[in-house]
């Protein structure tokens, strides 16, 4: 797998919530995520839960609270939508993938574009000042990923969908408004349906659709991860710099 990024802790005592994500524009294979401390913001006790998204010290920060979580989801949906747009527009899409695979990947392209555009519309309508608080359209780079390789595309899709499930599962508890929580719930189960289908395409005659690598074998629970665990993975594909200083 080439979608791994190296996470380098510059300050070993760094609190992840204080981390500064610098998303590099290096190619996928060499992509590095640099975590650096923000020395002017050391007091965790005063961490506010209502920091709005927007540019802080020259870099867009996702913010905190419900808008922060929705903006975080918007960033992840931008990535998924961009990836599947490239997948279905790859030159050999119609020959590399069989009928069922094309159907699945085309559906995923539709769903993720809808999710992305939904978050953009929802945030634009809900943010007090969307002109300065709406996350801009991000730029992406997939490094050496070959969009005409069935193996590489499906492996990356699996990683993205599993990551999406873990991200929404982990972010649910950060949402304070029931309507927003329900909307996230409506989306995460579709992401899980996607993850299952992609896993099943990769290894059909198996239990991988809900495999022991992703569902705990004693509790039957799926994975849930905080934004600070998700963003370094997503950062392997995102070249636009942004921070998530106020999310756990």
């Amino acid at each position: 797998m080439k979608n791994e990024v190296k996470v380098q802790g510059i300050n070993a005592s760094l609190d992840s919530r204080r981390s500064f994500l610098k998303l590099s524009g290096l190619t996928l294979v060499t992509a590095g995520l640099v975590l650096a401390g923000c020395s002017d913001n050391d007091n965790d006790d005063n961490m506010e839960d209502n920091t709005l998204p927007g540019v802080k010290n020259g870099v867009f920060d996702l913010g905190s609270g419900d808008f922060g979580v929705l903006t975080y989801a918007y960033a992840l949906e931008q990535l998924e939508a961009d990836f599947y747009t490239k997948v279905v527009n790859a030159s050999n899409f119609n020959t590399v993938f069989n009928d069922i695979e094309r159907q699945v990947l085309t559906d995923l392209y539709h769903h993720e574009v809808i999710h992305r555009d939904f978050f953009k519309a929802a945030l634009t309508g809900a943010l007090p000042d969307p002109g300065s608080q709406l996350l801009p359209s991000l730029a992406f780079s997939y490094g050496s990923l070959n969009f005409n390789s069935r193996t590489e595309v499906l492996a990356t899709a699996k990683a993205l969908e599993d990551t999406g499930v873990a991200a929404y599962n982990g972010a649910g508890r950060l949402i304070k408004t029931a309507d927003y929580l329900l909307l996230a719930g409506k989306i995460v189960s579709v992401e899980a349906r996607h993850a299952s289908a992609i896993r099943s395409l990769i290894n059909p005659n198996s239990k991988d659709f809900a495999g022991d690598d992703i569902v705990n074998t004693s509790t039957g629970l799926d994975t849930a991860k905080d934004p600070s665990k998700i963003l370094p993975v997503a950062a392997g594909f995102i070249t636009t710099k942004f921070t998530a200083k106020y999310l756990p």
Partner: protein
Amino acid sequence: MNILKFIETFTDDSLMKSTGSRRDSFAQFGNIGKNLALASIPFGLSAIANKALAKDITATPATPIGALQFALTLEYLENEFYAMALDSGVIPASENGGRDLKVFQQISAHESDHVSFLIAGLGGTMSANFVPKPTFDFTVGGAFDPFNDYPTFLALAQAFEDTGVRAYKGQAANLISTPDLLTAALQIHSVEARHASEVRRLRGLKGWISNAERGAGMPAATQAVYDGEGVTMQAGFNTATAFGAAAGSEAYDEPLTTQQVVDIANIFIV
């Protein structure tokens, strides 16, 4: 004692800082239940406990414990359904080169884990919050033959998994005050969705629900599972605009209310 405050206090103190393995989480989740049980809070669910051999279940209260009790009853249903199916031999070992049997063994293992997890979360079988397993009749008085007829088994499996996804989603608001319980419920919710996708795909359908369609070969009696899934307006955004209504509805799963799920479950409870 304010139960929500109690749970929040407990979770703030002990669980939100948890960074342990999920096995640790499991133990901690059990501790939540034990502490809740010790608090002896009446949740109004004794009605169910007192009629273990009676017929229908009733809607659980819109509380975190009510949501767990509701989830446990659903997991009882799924767990018994798959256990009986595996025992009956209705799943042909040779189907799809053995794929189907592997799939349902995995699903069965997960549902069994969910039952144990939720019982622990409710404080164990001796807890005042514990709800016993109802008596199920998956033949619905002889109308279905899921343990002798494989297509019927597959159809009911799809209906149960798609119901499970919608049911957990409908409980999210009841858990918003208890972050650890909410997270655990979300973690079960997405597993149910993984199951649903695979069962649907075994049946030749898409892994996601188009419009409010129950899909080819599904008995009409299962339509209640799919009613309301065709929504294409989400928070004022028209999801059908870009690629049509089917894609727009597929991109979002819709919740079922507690009562809607209870009504579906009661079809199989005697």
